């Protein structure tokens, strides 16, 4: 039940702070900002509004109509209809924060299963109930390292090929803390081992991405060993689909694994809501931000689920908490749980292989177009950099005229990379689309 403040309550509160009416609270606002006259058109009916909005939305160009090779952090994957059908069940759709285990067993079980799937996928001991998105997961990893060493280690080493948006989020989260963030200005084409010389005794964490923002895969074991030698943590950001094929970061020493969960059955939706995966080792579980659902038994010995470590952040640890963010992406985490359950272990492996082989076919074909090249020795998963004979921006413009969303122009983040286009290929790109892309490039850029 929601009980609002009574008139008497409000009067009493105003009296305490020495004001007469609520409007007095807003004295600091300039007069012209208060109750401005709005120049709005006449109201319209719901039917008219629907008409107008539909007209506006008809200008959208989406991955439904276009052939898309755009990735750079968000990937066009098939979402089975069952994902949405289960998501929209009232029991899940309307359930808010599951603080009360006696009425929220379904939600808690879903979170527990989600955590179990993320832990299994990443090879880590424990996963939390999720964060907002990949970017906030990465920032929470830095935050966790900072608190693990209780602020005594103040150097954060970040690879230049961690998604630029994630790096920006690290800066936002850590702003105001006395930290030194290094590594981002290294040459993006460099090897992750080049970060090693930046790691010292004062380093709290090394943050890398695997595959990295340029789609590349590197053996990170030397880097993680070097970080551990200096008692620094290592956080590896992954693409969850790639782990159907690749060695999980737990096997090369990651202390924290973060991921953008969007590829796991979550539609592109203009950039969100997405899903932040976060997993770590058991020894750091009490430094992990967010919530953790646990399995237990009730007074009758029956299996049940509870939130195990959430309230301690806000209610018990207070200013000692790792993060002030406890919230999880409940519904989106559920979507990824349904998606992974539908796929199963073998399905995920098949999907990862499909992505890998399609991307490698595309890279091979694009390389045959005169003027275009893809590094032939660099291992990658489903995304790779294409060197173009003209600025990547021009290539994208040309492709768009053929209803192809070409790729990501890397010059947006790396000013030197004017001719580099980041191309992603998924199971959504049949061979015919890849061949069409190559045919357009051949036709437009022949000598």
């Amino acid at each position, binding site marked *: 039940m929601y009980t609002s403040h009574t008139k008497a309550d409000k009067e009493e509160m105003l009296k305490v702070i020495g004001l007469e009416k609520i409007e007095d609270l807003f004295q600091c606002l300039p007069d012209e900002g208060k109750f401005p006259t709005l120049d709005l058109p006449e109201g319209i009916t719901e039917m008219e509004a629907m008409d107008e909005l539909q007209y506006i939305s008809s200008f959208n160009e989406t991955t439904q109509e276009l052939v898309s090779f755009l990735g750079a952090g968000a990937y066009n994957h098939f979402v089975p209809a069952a994902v949405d059908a289960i998501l929209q069940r009232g029991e899940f759709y309307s359930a808010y924060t599951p603080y009360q285990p006696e009425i929220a067993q379904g939600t808690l079980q879903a979170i527990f299963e989600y955590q179990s799937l993320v832990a299994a996928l990443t090879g880590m001991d424990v996963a939390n109930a999720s964060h907002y998105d990949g970017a906030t997961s990465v920032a929470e990893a830095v935050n966790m390292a900072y608190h693990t060493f209780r602020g005594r280690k103040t150097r954060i080493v970040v690879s230049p090929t961690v998604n630029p948006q994630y790096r920006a989020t690290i800066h936002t989260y850590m702003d105001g803390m006395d930290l030194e963030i290094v590594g981002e200005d290294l040459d993006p084409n460099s090897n992750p081992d080049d970060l090693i010389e930046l790691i010292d005794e004062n380093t709290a964490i090394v943050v890398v991405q695997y595959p990295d923002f340029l789609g590349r895969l590197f053996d990170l074991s030397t880097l993680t060993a070097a970080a551990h030698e200096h008692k620094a943590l290592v956080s590896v950001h992954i693409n969850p689909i790639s782990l159907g094929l690749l060695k999980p970061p737990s096997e090369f020493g990651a202390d924290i694994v973060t991921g953008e969960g969007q590829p796991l059955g979550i539609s592109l939706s203009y950039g969100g809501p997405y899903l932040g995966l976060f997993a770590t080792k058991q020894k750091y579980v*009490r430094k992990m931000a967010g919530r953790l659902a646990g399995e237990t038994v009730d007074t009758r010995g029956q299996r049940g689920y509870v939130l195990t470590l959430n309230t301690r952040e806000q209610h*018990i640890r207070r200013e*000692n908490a790792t993060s002030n963010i406890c919230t999880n992406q409940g519904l989106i985490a559920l979507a990824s749980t349904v998606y992974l359950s539908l796929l199963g272990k073998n399905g995920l492996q098949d999907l990862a292989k499909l992505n890998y082989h399609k991307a490698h076919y595309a890279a091979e074909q694009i390389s045959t177009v005169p003027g275009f090249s893809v590094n032939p020795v660099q291992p990658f998963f489903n995304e790779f950099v294409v060197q173009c004979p003209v600025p990547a921006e021009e290539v994208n413009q040309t492709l768009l005229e053929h209803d192809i969303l070409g790729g990501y122009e890397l010059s947006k983040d790396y000013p030197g990379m004017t001719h580099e286009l980041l191309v992603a290929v998924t199971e959504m790109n049949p061979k015919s689309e890849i061949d069409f892309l190559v045919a357009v490039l051949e036709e437009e850029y022949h000598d």
Partner: protein
Amino acid sequence: MKTPADLKYTKNDEWIRVEGDEAVMGITDYAQDQLSDIVFVEIVAFEGESLDQGETCVVVESVKAAADVYMPVSGEIIEVNETLEDSPELINEDPYGEAWLIKIKMSNPSEADDLLDAEGYQNLERDH
């Protein structure tokens, strides 16, 4: 509430037992009682590290609150009680014995002389 006479106390509810230039420290019976069930002990100081009086060396977390524990005297950490990691409840059961937190090699033993004795600690005014 027990307040052994052979120990020295701080206003922040830490105790120390001085043996030569070494000191063993923990939190008092009163502190564990106020915190109630202890569920997690994090010794943030590590062996070989030197800390000043008043610096945080341990965090004790109960079902009610997380509390910082401070160095009662300055010195080098020579041993930490690792059994508390798995058995934090020892602090509730035996705060002056098995649940010692760290051993310190004092860099300035006169600091210990300035701490409270049992009577002084018992007579502290509590604001709760």
